[in-house]
């Protein structure tokens, strides 16, 4: 693979994390414009850990995701008392707040005669762990996709359990879900934290691939895109948001065909889909249909699956 292609695939992989993060909240019926905040928090936290504290990459990544999860937990308590539109505005305000804090956040130490660390709006340079450890771009891409597969496996496992059912119940009719015994606050906080951690993994990967991060990368457009990916690709399965990312980053941004018109094409695509397929290309009905088709063509597998299958 040539370098450009590796770059494109790595970007698609990293952005997929934030798209999946928004997707988890969309499942529970909440629209968040603020997932970029957790992406940013983890990018900074993991960068600080590896570049300034001398940690290795993996502990740094876990630390970044954990800090993002903790931030999500802190955000969840006040904002989940808000519903619908108010929650969306609340998350947007939170994300902007986080970004503005990073604009003034200075924390630098001298390493080998050079100042390293976040320098307010000048950004955070020198997150060079990956390059210093001789990890090639191809290897890093594999790391990204390894982690992405793990997150996907986790989300598919959730879909099979009552947790997945509860998320979708909350998404469809919150009051009815509560009347069926769902502790709304508990599960919404849980979804927010899961979403924060997933975005955090992406943020840590992003910081280490680019070696340089600055607050303005994590502006609201990143959050808007991450929402749009789920809406384009579909909310029926975790593959949906990936399709959205693939279309946008893989097709629109990375090929030169739409240079300068990317946002026009992307915006138009979102508008069309919201009219014709309000829950995305792979919505619940599409997933249901694909699964029934699958079962019809695999009658042997069917007997085994029917004993063993959670609802679609």
């Amino acid at each position, binding site marked *: 693979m040539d370098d450009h292609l590796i770059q494109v695939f790595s970007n698609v992989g990293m952005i997929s994390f934030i798209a999946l993060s928004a997707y988890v909240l969309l499942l529970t019926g909440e629209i968040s414009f603020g997932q970029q905040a957790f992406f940013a928090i983890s990018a900074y936290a993991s960068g600080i850990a590896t570049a300034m504290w001398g940690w290795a990459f993996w502990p740094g990544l876990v630390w970044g995701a954990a800090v993002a999860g903790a931030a999500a937990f802190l955000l969840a308590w006040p904002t989940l008392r808000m519903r619908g539109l108010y929650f969306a505005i609340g998350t947007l305000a939170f994300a902007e707040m986080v970004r503005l804090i990073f604009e003034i956040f200075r924390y630098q130490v001298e390493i080998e005669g050079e100042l390293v660390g976040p320098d307010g709006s000048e950004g955070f340079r020198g997150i060079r762990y990956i390059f210093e450890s001789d990890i090639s771009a191809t290897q890093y891409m594999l790391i990204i996709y390894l982690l992405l597969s793990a997150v996907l496996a986790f989300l598919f496992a959730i879909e099979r359990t009552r947790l997945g059912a509860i998320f979708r119940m909350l998404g469809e009719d919150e009051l009815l879900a509560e009347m*069926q015994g769902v502790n709304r606050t508990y599960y919404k906080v849980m979804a927010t934290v899961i979403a924060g951690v997933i975005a955090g993994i992406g943020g840590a990967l992003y910081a280490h691939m680019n070696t340089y991060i600055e607050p303005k990368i994590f502006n609201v457009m990143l959050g808007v895109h991450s929402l749009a990916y789920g809406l384009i690709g579909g909310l029926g399965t975790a593959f949906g948001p990936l399709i959205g990312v693939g279309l946008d980053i893989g097709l629109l941004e990375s090929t030169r065909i739409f240079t300068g018109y990317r946002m026009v094409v992307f915006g138009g695509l979102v508008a069309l889909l919201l009219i014709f397929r309000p829950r995305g290309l792979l919505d619940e009905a599409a997933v249901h249909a694909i699964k029934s088709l699958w079962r019809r063509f695999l009658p042997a597998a069917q007997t085994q699956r029917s004993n063993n299958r959670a609802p679609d």
Partner: protein
Amino acid sequence: MLELDGLTKHFGGVRAVDKLSLSVKEGEIFGLIGPNGSGKSTTVNLICGVFPVTAGSIRFAGADITAAQPHQALAAGVVRTFQNIRLFSNLTVWQNLWVAQNGMESRKSENFLKRWLSGDAPARRSVEELLEFAGLIGRRDEYAGNLSFGEQRRLELGRALAAKPKMLLLDEPAAGMNLEEVGHLDQRLRKLVERGVTILLVEHVMELVMGVTDRIAVLNFGQKIAEGTPAEIQNDKAVQEAYLGGSSGS
């Protein structure tokens, strides 16, 4: 089993429910009737924790559930149905019953790995029983949104049962049903009582209320104006003035 004591709910200046006291005994079907806006649905909402109570108390099976959240009321055994049908219309009949069962189970009883591997076999079996009770076996894979009105009502009832209630609050279950369907509902309610479920029935359809209930309380403007057996209520002067007299009885 259920005791309301001085239950009061104000919405701004409106006294939707005003010092309502009543007691429902275990195993009975208790009717709650009254003209539109008399506070019946608000009472149901208060009992299952949708709104906070302004004053008074709610006791259920010996425990105080006045301040219970909806999921806590449900865990105590109070389950409701809705005046307007409320189903997950994008899920199939089977899935609606499946999730209803899942919602209520306590988190602690969940052995994640074991349940995941077995695909929840016991839960599946009880969904089958519920399908049979609701008379919807043949419609199991239909989306709930595509069912007929009567079938949706039956699914609601089956779903309420999935939570293994000690007490069912039925908010106008016969609304919009024809007489034949009302007759079937009558039989289903009696079957429920045989299973040991206590029922609080909020209803406008007098054929059902007068036929099936053991006792009735009548609300008007949030206050209880009468309580007694169906025969007593039919002969009550205050009730006739407030309700039956004005609206010819059905």
